[in-house]
């Protein structure tokens, strides 16, 4: 009784327990041959694959490369996406005109443009950053505009009745009101950025975790492949957690 009470109080523990149970079931499923070992390795083997992959390919170092690329892309996506979203909000006509195009662009598989980017930027980190930035910026633009449109007229009137400047209106009323909506956009954006970056790393065999995944894959090292995919997941967990903290800081409730 007390056990279940505590569990329900601690989401982290419940989550970890769920993962642990899943991994155990998977372990048994592979062990008994229900799942082909060639496709999915035993979780324990994946775990044991970390040291050799680290030895061979510097997993930790490349974890930080992919993390850094994603952070750089996201920083650019934010510094362009939020102001552009604000512009589309302020200029209603442009907002209405571009809304559909943005949604369409978001659905487009921009990753397929990588040969063009290679031509422009070469096999460099810049290609990774630019390819990560594009799919990351679009949801930020869309959600920034949505969030600003959703700010209550009453709160805007409160600001006006206190004679606040446009600047203060933005920083003290519109932005905090829109933060939850904008952060939804940021979270989606970061995930797309990460996926794109890892995919390009994989495709052009350059930098970061994607390259390790590709290398392990071509060696038919399934546990190694999974271990490096787990490292990608950890990058995503980092950003999810980090932006959660920032959101909480900007808007405690």
């Amino acid at each position, binding site marked *: 009784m007390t056990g279940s009470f505590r569990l329900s109080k601690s989401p982290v523990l419940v989550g970890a327990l769920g993962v642990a149970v899943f991994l155990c079931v998977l372990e048994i499923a592979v062990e008994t041959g229900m799942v082909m070992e060639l496709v999915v390795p035993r979780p324990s083997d994946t775990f044991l694959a970390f040291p050799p992959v680290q030895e061979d390919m510097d997993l930790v170092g490349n974890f930080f490369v992919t993390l850094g690329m994603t952070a750089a892309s996201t920083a650019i996506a934010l510094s362009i996406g939020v102001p552009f979203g604000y512009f589309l909000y302020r200029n209603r006509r442009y907002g209405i005109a571009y809304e559909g195009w943005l949604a369409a662009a978001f659905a487009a598989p921009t990753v397929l443009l990588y040969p063009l980017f290679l031509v422009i930027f070469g096999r460099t980190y810049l290609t990774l950053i630019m390819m990560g930035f594009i799919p990351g910026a679009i949801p930020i633009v869309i959600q920034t505009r949505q969030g600003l449109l959703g700010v209550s007229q*009453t709160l805007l009137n*409160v600001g006006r*009745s206190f004679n606040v400047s446009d600047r203060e209106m933005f920083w003290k009323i519109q932005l905090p009101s829109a933060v939850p909506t904008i952060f939804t956009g940021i979270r989606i954006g970061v995930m797309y950025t990460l996926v794109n970056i890892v995919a390009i790393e994989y495709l052009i065999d350059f930098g970061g975790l994607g390259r390790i995944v590709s290398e392990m894959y071509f060696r038919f090292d399934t546990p190694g492949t999974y271990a490096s995919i787990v490292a990608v997941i950890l990058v995503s967990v980092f950003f999810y957690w980090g932006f959660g903290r920032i959101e909480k800081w900007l808007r405690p409730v």
Partner: protein
Amino acid sequence: MANILEISEVSKTYDLDSENPVQALDRVTLDVAQGEFVSVIGPSGCGKSTLFNIVGGLIGQYEGSVRIDGRPVDGAHRDVGVVFQEESTFPWRTTLDNVAFPLEVQGMAKPEREDKARKFVSLVGLDGFENHYPAQLSGGMKQRTAVARTLAYEPRIMLLDEPFGALDEQTRMLLGDKMLEIWAALNQTMLLITHNITEAVQLSDRVVVMSFRPGKIKEVISVDLPRPRSSEVISTPKFGEYVGRLWTLLREEASRGMVESEAELAGR
């Protein structure tokens, strides 16, 4: 006493270019003296909030003129503070930070504005809730936060748009007393929209009765009850007379409003 606020011949029609424009106000004229407490009462949809938003400089494109100290008002005025009918506290700010907001945008230093805000928080009886967020407060407490925030702005004219509309009768009466105390202490000019006849008589020097669409002033009743007043005045016979008179005036309007809305519904 000099008039601080002069509203003359103000008319407002919404959606003028559309197929069915709504005339919200029709030639409303009202002068308010410095330090006066005036209530505005009238059926729902008669244009009370529209009138306040015009005086507060939040709605443009109206006819007629609004003057403060004899000077025409154009946009939000430093001397006018508004407490809105809708929920208007900032959900991401604590009670204290909400109340300190107007001081913050005026550039007052943090310790000073917090000191000052604390006084107004206490004035509306929210001591101990300084660090609560609006989500942790009751509806009435949120409204009091909004009142304190506008008080902290120290406007000469307070426009209160049904701040206690959603409260039970007892709380409302006690808050009415509180408003009278504040009014006496700060010597502000107060305009209050209410649906509550008792509240209007309890608080006001004059009660403005508005008629249903288009919103016009139907009658202005001066309330000749001794000051200082408290909610105890309610049990006096003279109070009853005022309430009776207002009720008769409003009943006509209310039933007219009902008939019109029913006709509108039937016409669809």
